[in-house]
């Protein structure tokens, strides 16, 4: 199948995945993802209409714990790992159109 993935698909998915891909990457990924998906599409050869999906190897449901106050990670240490922190918060560039 030649056109399983188009350039427009790659640009759209890159947007969803928050990756500012370069022109070279867009070209090579269009080709590579197509080849990988052609192989992966072998799974569609199997008849699975009455087979339930498996998301996880263990038959576990929700795991609960007692609702007790326990020590958590020290805030200063966690914030120290951030690229920019200010007033005990993570600082990010503007989100909407407002002035910083």
């Amino acid at each position, binding site marked *: 199948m030649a056109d399983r993935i188009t350039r427009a698909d*790659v640009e759209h998915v890159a947007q969803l995945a928050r990756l500012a891909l370069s022109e070279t990457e867009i070209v090579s990924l269009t080709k590579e993802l197509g080849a*990988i998906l052609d192989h992966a599409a072998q799974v569609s050869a199997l008849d699975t209409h009455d*087979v339930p999906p498996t*998301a996880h190897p263990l038959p576990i449901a929700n795991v609960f714990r007692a609702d007790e106050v326990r020590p958590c990670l020290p805030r200063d240490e966690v914030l120290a790992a951030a690229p920019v922190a200010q007033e005990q918060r993570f600082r990010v560039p503007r989100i909407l159109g407002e002035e910083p």
Partner: protein
Amino acid sequence: MAADVRAGTRSAREVLDEYFDAITDREPEVHAFNVVLSEEAREAAAAVDAAVARGDDPGPLAGVPIALKDNMCTRGIPTTCSSRILDGWRPPYDATVVQRLRAAGAIVVGKTNLDEFAMGSSTENSAFGPTRNPHDLSRVPGGSSGGSAAAVAAGFAPLALGSDTGGSIRQPAALCGVVGVKPTYGVVSRYGLVAFASSLDQIGPFATTVEDAALLLEVIGGHDPLDSTSIARPAPDLLSGLGDGVSGLRVGIVDEMTEIEGIEPGVRDAVRAAGAGLEAAGAKVDTVSVPSATYGISAYYLIAPAEASSNLARYDGVRYGLRVDADDVAHMNAATRESGFGPEVKRRIMLGTYALSAGYYDAYYGQAQRVRTLILRDFERVYEQFDALLAATSPTVAFELGAKTADPLAMYLCDVCTVPANLSGHPAMSVPFGTGEAGLPVGVQVLAPTLGEPTMFRVAGAIEAAGGRTPR
């Protein structure tokens, strides 16, 4: 070694110095480590020696050096996943396995190189350059836990930990000629393991012998309330049954994971010879078909990237690691991720995002999950007739650096024999058995049903004995 240190006949410091000599000697050419923790290791060894001097028992791994794959969190020590995006990050906590190792008296000697975020089969996808195979420096050590496998093979540490999502412990163990174990999903806590594909990831041991691997798994295994997918049971009891032999055990050689296209004759012969060795030791060996295993790779390369695309969304330049500035937050996210991730990680994020996107979800991810059910059912059916299974670990011996970097699909096919056990959650391990092409090590894979580790280790022990290797 641990027995000598506990008895005080050998100091942890002496043991450590011996391994550091090996590191000084060969690490420059092998590049197994992202960081060697000389000072921290010497302090830990001194603490073990002090405990022995006081008459305390420092634990079952007293003074035993161990190398950790650099995707396991170590408090205050950089944890990079061999990625630029975690540049400068020092975790504020230890992974559960790290806590258990320290409590058992083990000495962490360094953090080992990996394919970025454990995505790869050769350790060439590292932001810090490839690791080389200690048996032949022109070849890869396998991956993604290539640094850990190479560290044990080169004698930098007698033990190491890796993580296995699609074969990332077993395949490098096979290529480097050491023992590598992927336990049953949920036996070892994933708390503090940087997530790649959460329903597949499992931490496990590397060692030079089956017995050492068993000891290490006993130390790191067992329930952990900090991992909600951890099985509510104590660590498996492996050492006590290790000498029981395989008499009467039913072992099946899996056709679809041995008689496959592209497998080297040397590898296929090794699996057959291991089967013959088990038969001679009293096991009943037969061939068996697991038809859906053929679809393992296709299902895996949809499920794993899908989970990865979600897990790696956290690297957004906000809370840790790299940030590339931009005018608004969406552009900052995209610029940071573009700059911080390497080509293979981007490829998998793209693949996974596509497989999960509107219009394609059911055809790709949904179908892959249903195929996962078929694989699980097939193995469960086979385990009604067999106590353990035998297969190749890797279809080939270690390949040359650069041989597969231009063709992502060719690299993915390295995992054809290992991914089924990740999809099913069952335990599997690789045991060195003879040599193949170019005199390089070959690994034979032993598989067992859920929590079948005791049987799996007995079979592995018998293969090790049949291979004529003398433990230590």
